[in-house]
């Protein structure tokens, strides 16, 4: 009698080991798997949505001011209503920088540090994954999380402005604004993820890695502020440049250049022009400093990724 004819004697489940003969994909996009899983874990963390909303708040406020301005007439919505659009975007961008930094800490502090603690590199590198795949995968996961936090509200504000002022020539007068906005918003993603990755790779504890990056961020900011005060001579541009040579300062200064924003600390405050004027930091020293920080972070991370610890001596 066949098994089908006598189901009581049929084996209902074969639980023994069976080989896998299905497809195995090519090596090209293996880093994307790492990015996808890392992002999935990051977005499940408590506080992710909170930071996302807080980073979007400055853009929301700008949209609110614009709406109020349009309802009560230009110039009636407070000083903000007379801002140019690049100033408006730059203001929102600068206000969101602290939240982008916090997002970096949340998403990136444990990216390699947690793997170091759990010896996960042995799992990764025993698969057909190269060090570069791993590095790119981890870097992209931080960059996408920070970049999205920065870019999505900016794009929403852009669409809002377009909708509100299309007939007044918003796109004609600000033809490069969209691209400048994308560039400015991706800048924190690139800088933060590179430095954070380097710091995370040197630690086995995500909290210590986060504290180390916070230390670098704030202590360096304080140091360059002091250094900016003691710049010899009356070179305001040099002093301003020095004051911007920290991760946060670089993002703020480069953002100003990308948006081509005004030099006033509080643009739009009519009757007080010049009172809050601040010399614009020079572009190229800041670009160089940002590139050095990015390269340093990536090189440190690259040198720390090993499947096994080799003790030489």
């Amino acid at each position, binding site marked *: 009698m066949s098994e089908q004819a006598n189901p009581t004697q049929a084996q209902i489940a074969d*639980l*023994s*080991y*069976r*080989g*896998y*003969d*299905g*497809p*195995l*994909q*090519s*090596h090209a996009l*293996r880093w994307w*798997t*790492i990015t996808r*899983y890392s992002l999935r*874990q990051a977005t499940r963390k408590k506080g992710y949505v909170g930071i996302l909303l807080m980073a979007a708040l400055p853009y929301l406020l700008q949209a609110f001011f614009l709406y109020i301005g349009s309802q009560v007439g230009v110039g009636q919505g407070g000083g903000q209503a007379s801002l140019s659009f690049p100033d408006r975007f730059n203001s929102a961008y600068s206000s969101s920088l602290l939240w982008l930094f916090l997002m970096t800490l949340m998403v990136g502090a*444990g990216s390699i540090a*947690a*793997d170091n*603690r*759990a*010896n*996960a590199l*042995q*799992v*990764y*590198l*025993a*698969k*057909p*994954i*190269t060090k570069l795949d791993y590095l790119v995968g981890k870097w992209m996961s931080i960059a996408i999380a920070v970049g999205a936090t920065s870019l999505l509200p900016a794009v929403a504000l852009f669409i809002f402005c377009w909708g509100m002022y299309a007939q007044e020539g918003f796109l004609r007068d600000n033809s490069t604004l969209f691209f400048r906005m994308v560039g400015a918003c991706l800048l924190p993603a690139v800088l933060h993820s590179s430095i954070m990755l380097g710091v995370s790779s040197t630690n086995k504890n995500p909290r210590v890695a986060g504290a180390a990056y916070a230390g670098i961020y704030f202590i360096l900011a304080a140091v360059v502020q002091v250094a900016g005060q003691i710049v010899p001579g009356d070179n305001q541009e040099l002093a301003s440049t020095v004051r911007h040579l920290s991760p946060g300062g670089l993002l703020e200064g480069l953002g100003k250049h990308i948006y081509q924003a005004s030099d006033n600390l509080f643009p739009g405050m009519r009757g007080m022009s010049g009172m809050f004027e601040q010399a614009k930091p020079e572009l190229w020293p800041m670009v160089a400093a940002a590139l050095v920080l990015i390269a340093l972070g990536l090189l440190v991370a690259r040198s720390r990724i*090993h*499947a*096994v610890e*080799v*003790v*030489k*001596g």
Partner: protein
Amino acid sequence: MAVASVSNLYVRYGRKTVISDLTLDIPEGCCGLLGPNGAGKTTLLKSLLGFLKPSGGQSKVLNLDVATQGPLIRQRLGVMPEIDCHIPGMNAVSFVAYAGELAGMPGSQALRRAHEVLEYCGLGEARYRNVETYSTGMKQRIKLAQALVHGPKLLFLDEPTNGLDPSGREEMLTLVREVSHGKGLNVVVCSHLLPDIERTCDSVIVLQGGQVKVQGDIGTLRNSLGSHVDVELREHSPGFLDTLKARGARVVSSQGPRYRVAFGEEPKSLARELFSAAETSGAQLRGFRPARRTLEDVFLEVLE
């Protein structure tokens, strides 16, 4: 056919040479890699995986060159490392499916296979628990599961029974024995626990100081170093042992009046040889029988 081979391999840690001019073939089936601490077992596995860059020589795994085809090799290979390792913040299913995807499996296949392999490794009930909450035994099992998920052709197991209680060890050895026999999967077990190797492997390679001391089928090795006899006297007799030694025998072990004696070549009549030695030394022979040698005996003799 060899599943892995190395020729004239040199591996150095800084100025210290751990493996020097090593040439060996790892045969198909289940092969044990034995040796005292510092013999170079784990170093050999790491260099076969491409984790360590050798300072000389060539290595091939599954007929692929380790130096140039590392990712291809690792796609066909499963590794269960010695140390505790996992991807943090994941439950068992996610972890094993992720390992499958890293090996190149499509997402849906990896997930299906993760359930299957976890069931097979005895973690079916705990598959949705975070791996960080697992006991040592469960962590050993999940290391095996992530190594098996993509259906490798060759499996490297580094100390698979580390930290397991007797029943856990028994179950792990049964799993290893099952996957390495009749499933088309070649296994290399690296361990210093000789009974584990004896239970699971068909052949063995003994390393010492980065060199192959002995290699071959376990059954053959047990009988290769002459014939061994367990002898029992009425009381301890140094004269009896001296007589045997004078006739070319070697005393392997001695415990009170009980001895294990090895004859380099099988004597024509073992009984006559023993009775004659007893008569010459005035000892009383209580009994004798062919010794059943374990892998441990072979190992100790080789290292001596």
